[in-house]
């Protein structure tokens, strides 16, 4: 196998992987965004107060993804 054939084969494999990964990444992004929307919809403060029938909500600090406290 000469160098050009080897390089062609390598690029062939990388290109196929990139195309598959690119499509997957896009749908992962869509799934993440749709999850975020659901999350935001559940976060309405007054709605939760009304639903729970309590005057206050006690919030707990959690860590998400990158470790930044929110």
């Amino acid at each position, binding site marked *: 196998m000469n160098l*050009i*054939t080897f*390089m*062609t*084969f390598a*690029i*062939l494999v*990388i*290109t*196929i*992987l*990139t*195309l598959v*990964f*690119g*499509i997957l*990444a*896009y749908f*992962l*992004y869509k799934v*993440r*965004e749709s999850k975020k*929307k659901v999350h935001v919809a559940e976060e309405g403060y007054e709605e939760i107060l009304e639903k729970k029938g309590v005057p206050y909500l006690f919030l707990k600090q959690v860590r998400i993804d*990158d470790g*930044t406290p929110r």
Partner: protein
Amino acid sequence: MPFAIILLLLSLTYLAFINLTELYTIFQLIDNVFVSIAVILIVIFTSLVILRYLILMFFSIFRVGLKTEAESRKKAFHSHLKVSIIVPAYNEEVVIGRSIVSLLHQTYPNLEVIVVDDGSKDHTYRLAKRYESQRVRVLTKPNGGKSRAINFGIEHSSGDLIMVVDADSRLNDDAVALMVQYFDDPGIGAVAGSVYVVNQHNSITRLQALEYIEGLNMVRNGQSFLKLVNIIPGPIGMFRIEALRKVGLYDHDTFAEDCDVTLKLLAAGYAVDFESDAVAYTEAPEHLLDLIKQRYRWTRGILQAIRKHRGYLVRTQGRPSMTFVLWYMLFESVFWPFMDIFATVFLLYITLVTGVNSLLFFWWSLFTILDLAGALYCVLITKEKLSLVFYAILYRLYFIGIINLAKIFATIEEWMGVGMTWGKLDRKGRI
């Protein structure tokens, strides 16, 4: 270095010749109408891309050459023109302080800073208020989007020139002074500045850094040779207030308000220039999904802006330059990503059908050499690290494929009218 660029351009010519020969062989070998059409399309597309690179590079070289010593000496203060810097901010508590401080360090004396808190849910307003002084005003309004926040700031401003700066950006100290000098020419409606990636921590941000310097120093410098810069970037742009008022300030109907307002200015007959030494340092997305999110919004926003001005695509309406700009944008945002992926899939097919055909390698090499030449030229005329040039190989190997796929999906969704939101990115506070 110039020798390296010439060497790369010679390799480019050689590879273009090999690619043409190989494509012609396929054209003759496979007797199929679809393959023939695909080969013709790929030849046209590749020629257009090479032409685009070469023309922009030559325009850029001319433009850099025109910035003579005399022109740099022109960097005197024009204190009679007051500059109002508008900083729209939504949930920017991590970066707002540093952004305001960089504006207060500007060497241009006659300016005011107006921070518009667009109904942030975090402490942006409270933190910005700490910097309030004679030169800095902090306003707040209910959340309504970036374009409304900018217009709100403009309505409360008193400057002859409006500068819009993103809250996640930090300017170099002479950015305002450098940009103001362009407004001596009454035909200039706006001036764009350079945007550099500040958080070059991983391969994704370094690839974006390379993309930014190529986009700025080749594309925008090239466009500014004709005074037809098509996008004033969000992190740094300056406008003549009369020009903005003439075109009705920012509109709220696209997700790329900076592109839309630039097109409105070009359509109104104003020239749009570029100052490469006025620099804004900004945070680029550090994760792939955030990058896809950003490019998705940019693509759809640009398509929305093109659609608004689509009348110019078929009729020049007395502005042939506007027609040229719109076709150029359509090529870059739609045709290029589609054709790139189409050509890649076609070459994969050919490679698999004919055994391991070397055309795939030569085609990839052609574009990589083109990217390397562009990257080397851009690194030469900027202070960016030489190591960025080598990222041009990774750029062509996988990065641009993933980005182009996201652009294609965004284009299809825009065409189908799928709903979308702004998609704000989380800041890491690296400016």
